[in-house]
């Protein structure tokens, strides 16, 4: 199951809540303001590292560019809208609003 997160981890509890329900192997895709989670060296770096131990992590490239985030955590895959579609084709979706 694909989990999408569209909120900054600083402003809402979306990321931290989602994490509690994640199953090992489930891919996580950060979109919209959610992409701030994958910027290097912020307060949530450790949280993200924890997620990456058991789950593949993606971030939507156009949303990263829009926010000027180029230094993303190693191991996070930046994908475009086509890549988003591919993930949806492969998995059922759980959009954490």
């Amino acid at each position, binding site marked *: 199951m694909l989990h999408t997160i569209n909120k900054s981890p600083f402003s809402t509890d979306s990321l931290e809540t989602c994490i509690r329900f994640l199953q090992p192997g489930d891919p996580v895709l950060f979109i919209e*303001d959610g992409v701030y989670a994958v910027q290097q060296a912020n307060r949530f770096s450790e949280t993200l590292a924890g997620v990456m131990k058991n789950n593949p992590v993606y971030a939507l490239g156009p949303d990263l560019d829009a926010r000027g985030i180029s230094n993303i955590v190693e191991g996070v895959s930046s994908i475009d809208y*086509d890549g988003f579609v591919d993930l949806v084709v492969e998995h059922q*979706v759980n*959009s954490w609003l």
Partner: protein
Amino acid sequence: MKIGILLKEGPYNHQAADTAYKFAEAAIRKGHTVDAVFLYNDGVANVTKLMDPPQDDRHISSRWGQLHKEHGVEILACIAASKRRGICDDVLIEGSEITGLGNLTDIAIRNDRLLTFGD
């Protein structure tokens, strides 16, 4: 693959309407079918033809209308949510329709995926 979209926020105020559109565009480009975009909560405001954004900005309701015209995507606004927010047949963009939640249930049943975009 057949995909339905549920959009829960109004245009411009939240990025949800833009992400949903970009996703739909990409899915169609890749050969999938986007069956319907169902508008709920403030999302119903996506289809008012009265919107008149600055010239150099995107026109969100026209864009949904085009998606219907070019790719047959149903653009549906929930009637109960629309009534609360002043969306009615008089203001609908061509190609969109006001309908009941039963229709959303059908969309959930007949598609391989139902994706939610919101706040």
